[in-house]
């Protein structure tokens, strides 16, 4: 996104009130972006299901009922039941909670560490920048899932550790995007003017540089949340993420594997849940990218 210095922003205000707030302009453009809006609406529905899961889900996702084991989809159990007679629809709805939380927490870890590394590396320059960027290079030398596996091995299996592992594996993307943004913003006149006027470092970074690196990071975060959900559910599928009896989609797929011939619904619906969530995030992220960075649109 093009950077706008405060004086230039005031000038633009006087010339054209409509385009004064770039975020409002972006929002207006996003509302007119059909696939982006489709993604946003899907996400809203998924988030609604996740937040209101106890009221939306027809049954307790952990309630075992051996008599109702492996029932196929029917009006009583729309997605069927699992080997312990638990309602699959309720488990899939509660699964949205876990997956969205996993995506958000992982991305928050990656975003905060990546932005911090990127800002320090971009602004400080010199040996500190070199050391930090070599660290990022080292992280980049690992395929993302392999890095997540190493982290899980060090921390031990579990949902929280899976979130940390996925978050760490995504740090390099944010560090690079932020550093590139900081390097570009540093050369802008308004930053140099603020420096010359003696603006304190925190103000320079927080008020002048940070607003200019937010937009690309938002795009990376929106698309990265989908990738994080895929990676997190892969870890659970391998038995290294969420543990039973948690209704986590990857774990549910893994548990249903042994019954594919007998009960297709055990593997079908949790996978569908992952795909729809990731697709919604991709549509939303693509829409944001088109709106916030028109060059790539």
């Amino acid at each position: 996104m093009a950077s706008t210095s405060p004086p230039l922003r005031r000038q633009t205000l006087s010339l054209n009130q409509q385009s004064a707030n770039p975020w409002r302009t972006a929002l207006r453009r996003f509302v007119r972006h059909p696939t982006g809006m489709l993604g946003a609406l899907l996400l809203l529905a998924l988030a609604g299901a996740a937040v209101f899961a106890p009221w939306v889900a027809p049954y307790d996702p952990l309630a075992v009922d051996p008599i109702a084991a492996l029932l196929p989809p029917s009006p009583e159990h729309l997605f069927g039941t699992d080997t312990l007679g638990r309602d699959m629809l309720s488990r899939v709805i509660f699964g949205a909670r876990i997956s969205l939380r996993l995506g958000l927490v992982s991305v928050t870890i990656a975003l905060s560490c990546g932005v911090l590394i990127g800002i320090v590396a971009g602004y400080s320059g010199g040996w500190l920048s070199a050391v930090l960027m070599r660290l990022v290079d080292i992280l980049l030398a690992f395929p993302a899932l392999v890095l997540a596996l190493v982290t899980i091995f060090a921390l031990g299996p579990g949902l929280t550790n899976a979130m940390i592992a996925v978050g760490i594996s995504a740090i390099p993307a944010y560090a690079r995007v932020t550093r590139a943004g900081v390097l570009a913003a540093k050369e802008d006149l308004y930053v140099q003017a603020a420096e010359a006027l003696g603006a304190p470092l925190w103000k320079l970074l927080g008020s002048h540089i940070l607003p200019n690196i937010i937009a690309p990071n938002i795009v990376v975060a929106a698309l990265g949340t989908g990738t994080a959900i895929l990676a997190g559910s892969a870890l659970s599928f391998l038995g290294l993420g969420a543990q039973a009896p948690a209704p986590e989609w990857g774990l549910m797929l893994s548990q249903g594997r042994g019954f594919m011939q007998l009960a297709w619904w055990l593997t079908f619906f949790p996978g569908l849940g992952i795909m729809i969530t990731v697709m919604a995030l991709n549509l939303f992220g693509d829409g944001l990218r088109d709106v916030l960075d028109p060059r790539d649109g």
Partner: protein
Amino acid sequence: MATFIARRCLSLIPVLIGVSFLVFAAMYIIPGDAVDSMLAETGASAEDLARLRAQLGLDDPFWVQYGRFLSTMARGDLGTSLVNGRSVAEQVRTQLPATIELTLAALAVAVVLGLPLGILAAVKRGTWLDGLSMVIALVGVSMPNFWLGLLFIMLFSLRLGWFPVAGTGGLDHLVLPALTLGLSGTAVIARVSRSSLLEVLSRDYMRTAKAKGLPPQRVINKHALRNALSTVLTLVGLQFGALLGGSVVVETVFGRQGIGFLTANAIQRGDFPLVQATVLLAALSFVIVNLLIDISYSLLDPRIRYG
């Protein structure tokens, strides 16, 4: 050119040392050590544990242990598995061919399907063909590969009986895992090659080529594709990393032999030396493939060589 290659190779040394440090440190911070894993169920006394720990040098300072780790790795000695006592190097050697076979087959699927899909979408921009290609690509990037693998098994193995459900063997054992692993790459390559080609198609020299009266086929093949290919080539290198990571999951789904399956099992069983070796191997291959991509990139575009 030789200087360029030498410079790129030298720049890898600190990265590889950093990678080995990170892997070693990750294993070092885990509570418990190899001795705990080896003698966990034997009821050995605390003195026995301390003696064995001293024998293996596990009570040496971190840097001494790391130095020893580097020197044994450099000699190709990857240690022995804590679970079955077999040589790690031998296990890696046995499993590696199956993973190379799977990764190359998946890469071929990704390029052979993804590139034409992206070209078609770019050339027919705005038509239903473009829309369809991009919907396929969107579904491809959003679908977890372990789910796709299970759907393939349900349809093609259990229902139609066309392919075996699991195992390693001939071509019939390779088709479903390669398709499963390659389809997400197909989607990514299709999306990127479309946008890369669209960007090239809007350049001035493309207008000149068309204005000269060159046939559209020639304009695309000779001028557009060649210029769009370098972006796609970089992506292929990145996709190789995704495929290496994905092989852990896909080999587990299909019960295939391979480094991925070995890694997943080693992590579940807490087999330090095996995890160290397979993770280092994955990072090393990823780094080398990206180096080769960089070199081929510079062959395509001389500005990079001399820049």
